[in-house]
């Protein structure tokens, strides 16, 4: 699973546990949902969660809540229990009985990665067009479709939705999506640029695969100008991954490795690392020596950690440099749920 999907999955689950609910017309379904949530919050073991989710889906496949549960089932049964076929079967039955376009979109997008994993990818265009016929899709919805499409070779759909999401990569569109939040004009401009970079990365890789190579190169050039990195310098979009894939496809493995290194080596992006390995083999004939090249790239790209001072739960302040002094340190950011 790639890193963006992993984070998105977690956010979805946490949203579910926190209990963000929508309105549904049927009172008994609302009662069932509230009973479900109370019981769900008591559960810790994955198989127990899966059982409870599936019993709700079987009892209320046509409710809007089915859309909220689909990502959780895809994650727990499909990924944690490594049973994508099982998760797909339950979700497919749910989808067949559900008529709410919002829920159908959520169920379909939760099913798609599982269907791709078992080698029978669904048609993303069908999933997206159904909801798009009822209301305009948001930026997040469009870029999710574009991302999934280009990651799984559905180039036409990828190009179409990446292009559509570009229209929402403006400060005005960003602010209108978050009317209750207090963003400064500078923050809104930065968010809009990041949206643009995400959309251009998807679009560039889709165009390349549709044989529109000059447009693809121009698209990546524009995306690179907008590239932003995380703390270790890895791209916070798919830009490094797709630009690296394009360089490799264009017969330049050395350039590909250079583009991929920040995300593959520093960012721990497994997809980028797989392409980095491919590029290394293309350049050297085998993966012999790969590990030492990775370490030397790491030595070059590594930067010194910033020091900071924070309090523990007894109120005592600690300098990070004193806690980590001369030790190999895992600095772990988390929050309790």
């Amino acid at each position, binding site marked *: 699973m790639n890193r963006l999907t992993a984070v998105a999955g977690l956010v979805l689950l946490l949203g579910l546990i926190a209990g963000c609910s929508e309105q549904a017309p049927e009172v008994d379904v609302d009662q069932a949902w509230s009973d479900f949530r109370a019981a769900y919050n008591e559960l810790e073991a994955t198989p127990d969660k899966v059982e409870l989710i599936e019993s709700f889906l079987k009892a209320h496949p046509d409710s809007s809540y089915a859309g909220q549960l689909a990502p959780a089932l895809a994650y727990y049964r499909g990924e944690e229990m490594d049973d994508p076929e099982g998760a797909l079967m339950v979700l497919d039955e749910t989808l067949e009985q559900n008529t709410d376009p919002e829920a159908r979109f959520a169920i379909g997008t939760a099913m798609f990665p599982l269907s791709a994993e078992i080698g029978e990818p669904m048609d993303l265009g069908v999933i997206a067009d159904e909801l798009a016929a009822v209301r305009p899709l948001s930026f997040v919805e469009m870029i999710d479709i574009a991302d999934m499409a280009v990651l799984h070779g559905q180039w036409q759909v990828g190009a179409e939705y990446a292009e559509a999401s570009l229209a929402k990569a403006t400060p005005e569109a960003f602010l209108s999506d978050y009317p209750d939040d207090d963003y400064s004009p500078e923050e809104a401009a930065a968010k809009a640029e990041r949206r643009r970079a995400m959309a251009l990365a998807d679009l560039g890789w889709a165009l390349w695969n549709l044989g529109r190579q000059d447009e693809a190169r121009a698209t990546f050039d524009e995306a690179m100008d907008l590239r932003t990195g995380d703390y270790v310098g890895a791209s916070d979009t798919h830009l490094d991954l797709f630009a690296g894939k394009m360089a490799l496809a264009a017969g330049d493995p050395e350039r590909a490795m250079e583009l991929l290194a920040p995300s593959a080596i520093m960012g721990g992006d497994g997809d980028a690392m797989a392409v980095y390995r491919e590029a290394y083999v293309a350049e050297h004939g085998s993966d012999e020596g790969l590990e030492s090249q990775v370490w030397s790239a790491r030595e070059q790209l590594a930067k010194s950690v910033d020091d900071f001072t924070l*309090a523990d739960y007894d109120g005592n302040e600690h300098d990070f440099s004193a806690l980590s002094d001369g030790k190999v340190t895992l600095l772990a950011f988390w929050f309790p749920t």
Partner: protein
Amino acid sequence: MELPRLQPLYETYADRGFTIVAVDGKRQTELATKFIAKHDLTYPTLENGDGDAEVVKSVFKVQGYPTSFLIDRDGRVMYAHLGFEPGDEEHLAKEIESLL
């Protein structure tokens, strides 16, 4: 979450010069202290600051949780890790050993 799964790594490598510093990005003091006690976490656990003292987003650009950084003995950030999936412990143990 991943914190309890890090405790065995801490116990295995602490003697050889490895430590963990956990920072709660959301300042949920009560939940965090309960969680730490429940799972018997013995490595340092800190709480993100407020306002100007905030570091998780402003310094480390953390966009999602869990995010962790592996830092070598010279204080250099050797790589970032997003999320926490089954099997990540083994991978992490290998990386820690190569740095010790």
